[in-house]
């Protein structure tokens, strides 16, 4: 049986050459993301903005957005957003914090309920007060920051410091672009989105660690090679895995986006964007960063400058090393402070 291969075998893309393109591009995208975040406000859900969402389903026929809007207008609740939602019979009503605090907020829900009771079933009510939403913003931000610090610590402990810094820079890049994505698409940003972002952080680190692991291994094996060559070789080696994994996760998320229902949809879209960005950054942001941070291969020349000229020579040392498979011993001995791989 012929098995499916998405990635061609034995690729030799000179990935490091792209860093002259990828860095300016990512920098531009990151700046755009920040600008979007500052100037085009995110579509904060009530978790963060405070307010009320009421989901209605018409008892018969379809939901009349126009009629609902007219009803809402009469109740003087401030800005009311009425939207069709999911199937034809469904609609959501969303309005902001009411002057008069928590008590007024509850009274407003009651008024809406009474006004639409005859024609609609109330399927979901969410009310978040102003102080609670402030706390949710705090704990969400804290969560993202803490997880990055914790992972930084772990990587520092397991790898050289350059690896930890590169991984964190790549992760922050992914984080920025994801936030920019939310601002650009106006997908609702709520606590579930925080979960999405943290999962993207996890996935991004997962990707990064796989590449870094291989780079570290290759560095021990080919001591004479420049860092840029090592990195190129490592990325090419893990490329089939990278593509394969990204595809399976993509398939899972796609089914979540299509079949998982309305509530999960913005989560799924953000995650799909996240895996694309995370895969890109592990290859084009994190790995070249090692060169900029001055990671040196032992006895190898300072990496970077000669990457292009040496790219062609990769073939030779690889062949030379290949017939000696079970030789992790010496490499391990000179592995210095890094922990030996479990070869």
């Amino acid at each position, binding site marked *: 049986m012929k*098995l499916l291969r998405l990635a061609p075998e034995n690729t030799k893309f000179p990935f490091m050459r792209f860093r002259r393109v990828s860095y300016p591009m990512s920098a531009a995208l990151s700046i755009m993301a920040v600008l979007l975040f500052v100037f085009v406000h995110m579509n904060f859900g009530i978790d963060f903005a405070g307010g009320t969402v009421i989901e209605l389903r018409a008892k018969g026929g379809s939901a009349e957005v126009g009629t609902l809007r007219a009803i809402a207008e009469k109740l003087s609740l401030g800005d009311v957003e009425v939207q069709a939602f999911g199937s034809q019979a469904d609609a959501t009503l969303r309005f902001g914090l009411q002057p008069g605090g928590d008590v007024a907020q509850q009274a407003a829900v009651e008024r809406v309920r009474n006004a639409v009771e005859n024609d609609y079933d109330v399927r979901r009510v969410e009310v978040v007060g102003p102080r609670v939403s402030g706390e949710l913003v705090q704990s969400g931000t804290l969560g993202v920051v803490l997880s990055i610090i914790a992972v930084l610590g772990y990587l520092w402990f397991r790898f050289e410091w350059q690896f930890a810094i590169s991984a964190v820079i790549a992760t922050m890049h992914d984080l920025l672009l994801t936030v920019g994505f939310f601002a650009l698409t106006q997908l609702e940003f709520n606590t579930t989105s925080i979960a999405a972002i943290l999962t993207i952080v996890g996935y991004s680190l997962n990707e990064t660690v796989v590449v870094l692991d291989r780079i570290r291994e290759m560095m021990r094996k080919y001591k004479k090679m420049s860092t840029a060559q090592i990195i190129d070789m490592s990325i090419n080696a893990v490329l089939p895995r990278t593509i394969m994994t990204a595809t399976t996760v993509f*398939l899972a998320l796609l089914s979540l986006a299509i079949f998982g229902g309305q509530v999960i949809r913005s989560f799924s879209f953000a995650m799909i964007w996240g895996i694309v960005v995370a895969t890109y950054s592990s290859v084009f942001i994190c790995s070249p960063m090692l060169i900029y941070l001055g990671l040196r291969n032992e006895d190898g020349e300072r990496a970077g400058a000669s990457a292009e000229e040496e790219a062609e020579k990769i073939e030779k040392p690889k062949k030379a090393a290949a017939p000696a498979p079970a030789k992790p011993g010496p490499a391990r001995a000179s592995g210095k402070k890094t922990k030996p791989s479990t070869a």
Partner: protein
Amino acid sequence: MLRFATWKIVAILGMTFAAILVVAPSLLSPSSYEALASKLPDWARPPTIVLGLDLQGGSNVMLEVDKPSVLHTLAMNLRDDARRILREEKVAITGGIGQQARGVQFRVPDAADRAKIMPKLKALAQSYSNRLGAGAPPLDIEDSGDGLIRVTVTDTGLTEKVRRAVDQSIEVIRRRIDQLGTREPSIQRQGDDRIVVQVPGLQDPEQLKTILGQTAKLEFRLVSEPGENPADVEELEQTEQAGKIGVEKQVMVQGEDLTDAQPGFDQRGGEPVVNFRFNIKGAQKFGEVTSKNVGRLFAIVLDNKVISAPRILTPITGGSGQISGHFTVEQANNLSILLRAGALPAKLNIVEERTVGPGLGQDSIDAGKRAAYVGAGLVVVYMLITYGVFGVFANLALFVHIAIIFAGLILLGSTLTLPGIAGIVLTIGMAVDSNVLIYERIREEQHAGRSILASLDAGFNRAFATIVDSNVTMFVAAAILYFLGSGPVRGFAVSLALGILTTIVTAVTMTRMMIAVWYHRARPTRLPI
């Protein structure tokens, strides 16, 4: 690598079997589960998966003690106490007692008088401290030296009072919700001043909020008559009619003295009413007041609003009575629940509410199931066409992986939420990553010219370090989500974390075992990968 100790094989198969056994009852339809459970003794009833409120429908309400009202009560009590002390000590003050937001102030011109009452005030602070059990002083007594004395509630005093109010409220709320007859409500304190109430499968969230949002402080007071001292009279709103009514400040009988309250119907009009009964002390007091004041209006005051003010026609000495106030049946029912459960020690505000109707919950379960089936299906097919027979092993491992996640959720008693389902769908995608890492490594080693056994060996061993590193980072993210997240996000974190832990067992050890068994049977000359 391909030698597997028998005990390992037995352990893995045993774990798989156990996981399936734990999950099986949750797969039964509710009716067949009931049929099974009814035949078993209590302790042997198999646990099933607990669905979050977003899946089974229900209400999640966060209540917060209203600090301003607590402070107001404290300040009012302080005024009464100060007045009592001044009277007892016969101390003259100039300009009366000034009420402030946090307490009282008054001017004692005479230095000897000041010296006389200071110890009394300190003793008062001590008694507050005893009552609240606070470490730091709950009252701040300030003598400015020129005669002005200020007694205020400190932040510690307020915080302690609020904390105690939360404790007492939890009890009252539990009694109130039990009356609604819902099953398994969860009532928990959160922080210093909040209570989270979760009631699954509630049909009428409005009733829940009505019942939670009322203090239910019941008082019987006389309606004032012309010529009374205005200082003793208070204007209160009425629930039935517009406008206010003057009632005496003195409370004759309190809701605390009730022993029972039941909804009923008025014998003459047939209107819904609440029948109540007093304890001995309350009955005596009630009898005394009603005999002394025949002909006057007697106000029934609930949460500082006058429900009704019937005229006392004859002395009521039997210890029972009736509250009428043009109630609906539901209102009468709610009021009797509130009176039976007792009053809340402080006003509670609803600061967050999340209610999901049962219909929407069912829709979410269906959507989640569909997404999981389709997602798993796609991944399974994809692994098959990419890795052939090795894909079969990865898929078997994936199946066990999912079974163990659910078994873990069931055994931990963790609730399955919609984001939790999303987490599981995501781990379906992530779980095969470990297999992919291993398989790609095996391919690589084979391409590099190693023997079959050496390729398999190197594939598993080398990929393992990577798998551990990458999963630890993911696990850290999940752990932080768990500790900082609330409700549904926590559910997501638990599923994610469980998925990551399970990966190591299923994707690495189990796949390895399957490949070992396969290798001994098939004796391949080349790995089909």
